[in-house]
């Protein structure tokens, strides 16, 4: 076998120009494949990260049935304290209680619909990036109520502030369904999450103010959980379900169960990159097959000699296939050697997508993409490269193996 490798290697070097060109096409194709895959994975994660870090969180605990019908009627009593203490006792992650409800934001002559979120400011900053994304003013800190005004504070998104023409210090009225109906607030801060669709609709008030507004006593509708590692979500979910089995009936859902489309997006991007791989590898296969075929035709007399000296046809088949694998393997190696540092570097600095920021923002992406490759992204392209080497090498190899020694020797 090692003799075969040596012969194969020597043959590749003999036609070094040809080998170099084929190698270049494999390297370019493969590096591009990995680059594009890394970009799509980065884009998918960008969307998921933004959603998870603004509002979705990794896990959310609601009253049973809330996911199917998210009404403020389905609530967790007692500020969710029992659940929060259970989560914290077990050290399962950062947790924050929320009261989420639909409402209307009104200024003197403007109305905009909003998702009103009542939060515990200190806890919220541990599960959400919104408290750290202020572009003006301040978040709902403890000092909020002692602030210059008697009106309770509200934090709104940049996009909503723009539409309302509201600035920090302006008065807004929140109107919600139910008997209590309405309450006046003063803009305390303006945030920019990166998703304009989010910034247009989510407003934040303190949990106590939201409970008063919605007339919900001390109930909350949601407890959001952010884990240090998203991959732990299924295990933590299982443990929580065990812990929270008692009354009241609760449901614990992962982000991908609450937003299945977001999760599907990454899978779909994977499938699209498969199509792209197939196309690029097919194009490479033409080049590899051609180069090997040429090299086989140049060596017809040689193969005749080898055959007449007793080398069997199957060994010759193997020889040409080994050449194909060596060439492809080398190209794959160099391609990986280029792609991995390139992706690592781009993953550090990110790729600015400012040109497309309106579309990205509208569909819930931020405009900087950090390409990344997961360990699971490598086996498939490498496997496809091997399959390409085999398929592209097979025809030339069969040609070489089927030569009749006597005729081949006489070939000019």
């Amino acid at each position: 076998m090692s003799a075969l490798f040596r012969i194969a290697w020597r043959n590749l070097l003999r036609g070094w120009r040809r080998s170099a060109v084929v190698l270049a096409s494999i390297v370019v194709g493969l590096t591009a494949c990995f680059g594009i895959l890394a970009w799509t994975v980065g884009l998918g994660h960008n969307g998921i990260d933004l959603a998870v870090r603004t509002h979705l969180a990794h896990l959310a605990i609601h009253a049973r049935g809330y996911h199917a019908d998210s009404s403020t009627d389905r609530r967790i009593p007692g500020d969710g304290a029992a659940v929060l203490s259970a989560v914290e006792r077990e050290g399962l992650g950062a947790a924050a209680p929320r009261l989420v409800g639909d409402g209307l934001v009104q200024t003197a002559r403007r109305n905009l619909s909003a998702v009103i979120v009542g939060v515990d400011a200190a806890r919220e900053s541990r599960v959400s990036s919104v408290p750290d994304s202020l572009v003006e003013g301040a978040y709902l800190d403890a000092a909020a109520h002692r602030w210059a005004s008697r009106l309770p504070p509200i934090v709104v998104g940049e996009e909503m502030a723009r539409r309302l023409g509201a600035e920090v210090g302006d008065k807004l009225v929140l109107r919600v369904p139910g008997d209590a109906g309405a309450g006046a607030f003063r803009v305390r801060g303006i945030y920019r999450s990166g998703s304009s669709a989010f910034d247009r609709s989510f407003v934040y008030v303190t949990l106590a103010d939201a409970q008063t507004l919605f007339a919900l006593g001390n109930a909350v509708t949601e407890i959001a959980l952010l884990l240090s590692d998203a991959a732990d979500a299924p295990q933590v979910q299982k443990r929580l379900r065990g812990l929270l089995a008692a009354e009241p009936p609760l449901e614990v859902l992962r982000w991908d169960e609450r937003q299945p489309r977001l999760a599907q997006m990454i899978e779909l991007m994977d499938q699209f990159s498969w199509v792209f791989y197939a196309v690029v590898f097919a194009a490479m296969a033409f080049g590899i097959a051609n180069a090997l075929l040429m090299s086989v035709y140049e060596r017809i007399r040689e193969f005749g000699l080898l055959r007449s000296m007793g080398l069997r046809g199957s060994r010759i088949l193997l020889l040409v296939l080994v050449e194909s694998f060596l060439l492809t393997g080398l190209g794959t190696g160099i391609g990986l050697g280029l792609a991995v540092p390139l992706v690592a570097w781009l993953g550090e600095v990110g790729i600015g997508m400012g040109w497309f920021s309106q579309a990205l923002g509208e569909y819930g992406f931020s405009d900087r993409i950090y390409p990344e490759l997961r360990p699971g992204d490598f086996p498939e392209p490498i496997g496809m490269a091997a399959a390409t080497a085999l398929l592209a090498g097979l025809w030339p190899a069969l040609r070489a193996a089927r030569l009749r020694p006597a005729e081949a020797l006489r070939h000019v």
Partner: protein
Amino acid sequence: MLGRLAWRNLGRNRRRTGLTAAAGAFAALLMMLALALARGSHEYWIDQSVRLYPGHVRLALAGYEEHGTLEYGMRLSPALRSALDALPGSVGWAPRLETWGLAVQDADGSLGRGAWIVGVDPERERELTRLFDGLGSAELPEPGAPGAVLGADLARALGVRTGESILLLTGDYYGSQAAERFRVTGTLSVGDPRFDERAVLTHVGDMQAFLDAGRTVSHVVLFAPTGERADDLARELSASLPGGYEILTWPELVPDLLQMLLLDDAGNWLSLSILVVVVGFGLLNTVLMSVLERRREFGTLRALGMRPRAVFGLVLIESLLLTSAGIAAGLAIAVPLLLVLERNPIPLTGEQLAAAVETYHLDPVLVFDLSAAQLLGTSAVLLVVALMAALPPALRAARGQPREAMREPT
């Protein structure tokens, strides 16, 4: 003469020529299909989005785009109406009065959702937009008896059915609180969550009464016969009206969709250029090998008096011929295939695929559009690649010294 020589050279190694041409055909076919798909689907999606609601041209008061609120409403005076009717470039117009409010279930006042309340002229919308296409047998809201069509998901969240009523709450035109009961006459599902989850569509007259807005509307949309004629229509409109209005055309009304499609185009171009580069390397290899094999021959040609320029040209012509054969084969498959696909858009049946396309509020359908410009463009790109790939081998062939070249072993 050079052409004949080049043709014979290609015929000398049929397999190599065949394989290389096949690679060219493969690239040509894929590029043509991918570009026709992008063009067809993008045009279709844009048209569908524009015809759902935004319209080709939107007329509003200056500042409406920035704020979109009631105080930027404009009075639809008889003079304005007749000006709109008189526009030769328009196939029709429709007024709308929009605001945000709360839709509350009548029976349980604590069950409510944020709602996008839009007063429309149902007859005009039915004629011009596809807003009411999915309505089925439900009634359209009639003026006088306050009725509303609800987005299907909104109706489900509120737990209301056709025939029941909802309470709409919002601030009226003068900033006072307004509340009124509307009978649900039907639900609609257009595949866009902005409508399905939020929209409450009422008759514009009822809406004006509800908001105490007199003859005020938020904006008027106008339709041109085709999207390309939108700019002409906008010019006509602006010439027939005094200042103080804001006239936008559809590219400004759906900027996010256009950017998304632009991003898709960018991805397409990137992928296709990688394909072209890989195929270009294959071509380079074929031409290079055939030049290296023929060093003696080129030496002989040179010794017989052929100019280096002619040798250079010979190699380039070979590469162009080879690629042209590939392009021709690609065209021979692509054109009939596209003619069939053009008439038969492919519905996306895969659940994930359909879901992903719907995420962008688009119809899950793949539409192909054959365009001569794209076929020519693809062919031109491939021919340029053929020239570039042949350049190094051609230079090599032209530069060889006749004496040395003839002494080369075969």
